[in-house]
């Protein structure tokens, strides 16, 4: 069962205003049904993650692109194996392999419709 993201509350919005969280707009269907195309997510910078977290990471081959996926597992080397919640419409670690921790920007803490 995929963990849902809570809706943004006033505390999240206040943290966004103060710059402790950053807002991103979701483009694409690979995180359906958790996140729909056009939803927004608030990302919290972090350097430690667990399996099940939705994370924002740099695309391994397109450096200007940031992608949103869920951590399926953590490899023995400490890299993160990322998979979309909608696996039939997602290009993720199944194609490009596990992502090193230094490439992960932060963790999604809530969503905004």
């Amino acid at each position: 069962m995929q963990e849902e993201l809570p809706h943004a509350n006033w505390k999240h919005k206040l943290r966004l205003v103060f710059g402790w969280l950053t807002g991103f707009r979701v483009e694409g269907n690979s995180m359906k049904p958790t996140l729909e195309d056009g939803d927004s997510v608030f990302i919290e910078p972090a350097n430690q993650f667990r399996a099940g977290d939705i994370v924002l990471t740099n695309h391994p081959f397109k450096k200007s692109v940031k992608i949103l996926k869920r951590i399926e597992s953590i490899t023995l080397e400490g890299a993160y194996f990322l998979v979309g919640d909608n696996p039939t419409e997602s290009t993720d670690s199944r194609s490009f392999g596990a992502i090193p921790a230094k490439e992960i920007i932060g963790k999604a803490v809530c969503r905004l419709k």
Partner: protein
Amino acid sequence: MFGKLNKENFEIAEAHCDAPCGVYDPAQARIEAESVLMLTKKILDLKRPEGDDEKAHKAYANTLARFIAIKEERAEMSKHHLLVLWTDYFKPDHLAKYPDLHEIFWKAAKLCSACKQEVSLQHAQELMDAIKRVHEMFWESKGKDVAWYTAS
């Protein structure tokens, strides 16, 4: 300050596949393979002109060259579409369901090369058969019942 709450100011986080549209269809490979099959037949049926009519010989050479060039191009395009399906659409969970998936794609790609190197009706037909199998796996994996058909 409160402009930070405006969604229009948010950066984009991409959540899609490398084909952002998510649209795949083995029909692309099938159409190209059908062209290869038809061109192979046309090359085999093409008769060399008898006699010394230079104009007829030049027309023959031109037609044969065009058939070969288009067969080469179409076989390469069919191979390209197969490789996109193999590497981008099909995922490890599909492999669990279709253990011969890699073998089917590998043979199909090899047949595309064989169709370029040879004028072989047998290999052109085997390529069509392999793509039919890809068509079946693909649509079954999407839970849709799509009948196999050909354009020619």
